């Protein structure tokens, strides 16, 4: 069972659905999931792209529709109902199924948004009795708002749409105890607040491997169904915003680099995520994950309402040239144990055809599922490939949990591992960020320094060494060399280590692990560090030449009293980095205060501006939340 199908099963349909879906996932092939690797080359024709997009939407809906046999009296979940309603098929059975499903409504945003979606998809297709059943469900069961930004995006988008669908109804008819107008106003206020935050100081849950769906789906619903043209426009613009950001951080459709939130599977098998579903659907340059990432169907059901702008498409698929993109994000909200409510996250992405390097400056952006940096290399087919290398400090800490959760941390430490984060308290995990890690990235060079406090639960660092690395060599110089695809990689541990067998998590819920052939660099030293230098194979006549070049690079370092490194990179740039101090590049301190909201060849926005300019070649699109305008133009016509 894949992580996503398991997560999807648990959240959306419960165990029964899990068995159903996961069983069928194995039995019923998904054409694109198991089919040949799609071309990563850009498709020039807009019409061709649209036709292919429609075909992919159809594939998702058909696959989900096929999960339930024609002889089954009912459709057992909102997934199947959504797919059928979108196809306009089997409507009488949809109505009967909805009436049954609404007898036991869920109680969270993960039920609200599918239910709202069915309500809208079925406005003209479900029977009056089925529609009445949906309406009753929104009266009777208290829906939990959740405690993360993605929960709130789903919660308020759903509440907004339902309040809009049933206007002028009294407080007594809603679980909130508020009238339709009150619900609509509260939802609207929050959604605008969240969009303002994201477009001025950055997204909180940025470039997530899975949670991208929890934003994209409700935003698509709003873009499709909000009656207020201003809200519709906002949602369309936010969709463009997050997809542009997501795809700028993808390599042949695979999300890479830093993530506010990812999971045990996606962090090492970078393609295997819901993010790849969106790449497949909107860019067409990678296969979809199993079960279309679970949530995929909800997007597919309304995907015809959205068309990815060409400029974003081009940003997503064009890896013909090197580029650096700097972005400003923010941490999850900190309740306590911090001087700031939300810490700034300075995110960097350096992309090339053969590989990409991504990072943020270290520290905790999210307490459990953050991923700080990696080098990810391109592969001909990413399915099952662990195409990434990084190091990290595994953290299991009450202080970190209580910083972000308004709960008693003592019991959280116990419960978190049984609530979908099985690896949290495991010393061999590869998921998470640490307050004791600081990172400097310059192009395709990474320096990660660690200064772990004595007494910390896991006093070591883990380096991920993939089964898919080739020619791995522990060199006498102290460098470890390897090839990943067409990338040459040099990894320099700064403290003694050993390479151990590593086990990958097959389920973030059960904690089931499997030996996939990966290895873990285990270094049990509090003061520690990693340097990684990547290069394209095409830059050197041979792998040996690359190794020789790396050995020749000036490098000095010490670990006492704190880790400090002076390294001249393969690109000739002198990097000086001491733990606890501002890093220096070519003699100039890195000025994070000058970091813009977006800065690079493709995405540009000033801090606080609410205005993002997307550029590719002569194509330009400006998303301006101040005026709620989208402006497309062709530069230098």
């Amino acid at each position: 069972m894949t992580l996503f199908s398991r997560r999807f099963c648990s959240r959306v349909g419960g165990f029964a659905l899990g068995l159903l879906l996961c069983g069928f996932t194995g039995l019923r092939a998904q054409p694109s999931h198991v089919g040949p690797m799609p071309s990563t080359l850009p498709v020039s024709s807009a019409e061709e792209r649209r036709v292919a997009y429609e075909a992919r939407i159809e594939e998702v809906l058909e696959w989900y529709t096929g999960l339930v046999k024609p002889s089954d009296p009912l459709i057992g979940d909102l997934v199947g109902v959504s797919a059928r309603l979108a196809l306009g098929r089997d409507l009488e059975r949809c109505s009967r199924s909805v009436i049954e499903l609404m007898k036991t409504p869920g109680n969270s945003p993960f039920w609200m948004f599918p239910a709202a979606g069915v309500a809208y998809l079925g406005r003209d297709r479900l029977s009056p009795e089925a529609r009445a059943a949906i309406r009753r469900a929104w009266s009777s069961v208290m829906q939990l708002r959740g405690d993360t930004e993605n929960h709130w995006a789903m919660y308020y988008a759903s509440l907004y749409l339902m309040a809009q669908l049933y206007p002028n109804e009294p407080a007594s008819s809603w679980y909130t105890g508020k009238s339709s107008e009150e619900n609509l106003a509260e939802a609207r206020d929050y959604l605008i607040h969240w969009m303002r935050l994201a477009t001025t100081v950055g997204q909180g849950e940025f470039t997530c491997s899975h949670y991208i769906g929890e934003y994209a789906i409700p935003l698509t619903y709003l873009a499709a169904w909000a009656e207020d043209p201003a809200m519709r426009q906002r949602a369309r613009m936010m969709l463009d915003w997050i997809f542009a950001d997501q795809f700028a951080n993808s390599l042949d459709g695979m999300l890479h680099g830093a993530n506010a939130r990812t999971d045990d599977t996606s962090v090492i098998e970078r393609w295997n995520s819901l993010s790849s579903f969106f790449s497949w659907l909107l860019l067409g340059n990678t296969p979809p994950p199993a079960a279309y990432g679970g949530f995929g169907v909800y997007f597919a059901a309304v995907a015809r309402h959205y068309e990815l702008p060409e400029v974003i498409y081009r940003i997503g698929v064009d890896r013909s040239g090197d580029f650096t993109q700097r972005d400003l994000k923010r941490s999850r909200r900190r309740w306590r144990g911090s001087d700031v409510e939300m810490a700034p996250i300075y995110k960097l992405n350096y992309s090339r055809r053969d590989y990409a390097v991504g990072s943020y400056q270290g520290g905790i952006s999210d307490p459990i599922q953050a991923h700080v940096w990696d080098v990810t290399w391109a592969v001909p087919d990413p399915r099952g490939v662990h195409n990434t290398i990084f190091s990290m400090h595994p953290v299991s800490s009450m202080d970190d949990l209580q910083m972000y959760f308004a709960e008693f941390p003592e019991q959280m430490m116990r419960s978190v591992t049984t609530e979908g984060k099985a690896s949290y308290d495991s010393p061999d995990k590869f998921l998470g960020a640490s307050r004791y890690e600081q990172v400097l990235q310059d192009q395709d060079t990474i320096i990660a320094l660690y200064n772990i406090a004595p007494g910390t639960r896991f006093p070591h660092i883990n380096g991920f060494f993939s089964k898919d690395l080739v020619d791995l060599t522990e060199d006498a110089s102290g460098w470890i060399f390897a090839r990943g695809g067409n990338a040459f990689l040099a990894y320099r541990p700064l403290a003694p280590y050993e390479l151990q067998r590593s086990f990958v998590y097959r389920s973030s819920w059960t904690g089931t692990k499997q030996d996939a052939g990966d290895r873990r660099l285990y270094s049990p030293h509090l003061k520690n560090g990693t340097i990684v230098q990547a290069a394209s194979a095409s830059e050197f006549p041979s792998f040996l030449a690359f190794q020789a070049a790396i050995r020749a690079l000036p490098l000095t370092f010490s670990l006492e009293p704190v880790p400090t490194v002076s390294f001249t990179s393969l690109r000739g740039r002198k990097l000086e980095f001491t733990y606890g101090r501002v890093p220096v590049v070519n003699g100039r301190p890195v000025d994070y205060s000058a970091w813009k909201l977006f800065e690079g060849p493709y995405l540009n926005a000033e801090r606080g501006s609410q205005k993002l300019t997307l550029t590719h070649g002569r194509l330009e699109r400006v998303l301006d939340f101040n005026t709620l305008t989208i402006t497309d133009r062709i530069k230098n016509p």
Partner: protein
Amino acid sequence: MPKGVVGLRPAEQRQKVSRIALGWLPPLAAVVLCGLAALSTLAAASAPTGAVAEPTAAAVAAPAHELILCASINRSYVIGSKMVTLSGLYRRVADGSFEHFGPNLLHLSAASLDPRDHQMIYLAMLNGALFSRNGGERFRIATSWDMTEPKDIAVDPNAPDTVYLALPDGFAVSTDRGWTWSRRERGLPDRGKYTQAIEIDRTRAGRLLIGCEAGVFLTENSGTRWRRVLPTRATVYDVRQSPTNPAWWIASTQRDGVHVSRDSGVTWSRITDLAEDGAWYNVDFGTRQRDWVALSSWNQGIVVSEDGGRTWIPRNTGLPADGRVMRVAIDPDTDALYVSVRSEDVYRSEDFGRTWTETGLKGSTVSQFLFVKKPQP
């Protein structure tokens, strides 16, 4: 009735003016009565006597309080999974077991009832502050998106239209029975105002203490202005005022020990016998046994004192091994001791923790035991 469990002296009955009971009186009378109660108890403030009270017929005959629990029965629930258990409000019924009422609510932190009308229930839960006008049948989410995950809620017994709300990012007040809310945080630190607990001084209108990340804060004007009376190095998990001695307060913390005040929360001293890192969740005082105190703890289980806090004794024998005691309460009518052991059960002791009996709320974790004064006929 176990041996040694006794009732109240007439004088102590006068002192036992709970914040709930006060609400049944007109506000002015309540204030006057509070004042009298305070005067009568101040003399004994600094040195609880340890005297054993004589039982009264009324105390033995019928419980004067209803016991309501905020309980979660949660089998690895996370947002989005199917809720298969019944959580939220429970009330004790005649046979001593608990029955659920109201909606199925996870993430319920605290409840408070309007002392004038028990149909008026306020809740602090994940979605914000909620209120019900019909005894919990239906609720209104009273706060908006800008207030979330409150940890405590309290109706002011001295002014029952006023409700206080402890927020992870501060403190809020409603003066119109929950319809509108505003923040009152002047004097609270910009960071460090994570607020876990509220305790209203029943003897002085507008005076309350809150337990925050940065310590215990005091206001004497319903939150208009705060000052820190106890700085701490970790979140204050609970602050409580003795029901029999209004000058006697105890504050428990996550890992900065347990602190006591004998002057109504103005000055504090650490209880040195108790571990600093106990994760001391809450404290409760005896009402009939005025020197009894009980503390719940993640690391220590249940710890009690029978001599007004001079000595402390663990009373975990009979509770699940490695049991994490999340909440403790002393029944004001019978002196029975209740504890919630995380995800296990609610346990009851008739002999102040020497022996324990399961009550049958299997798998539960209680965030609050609320003894509510029953309306007088």
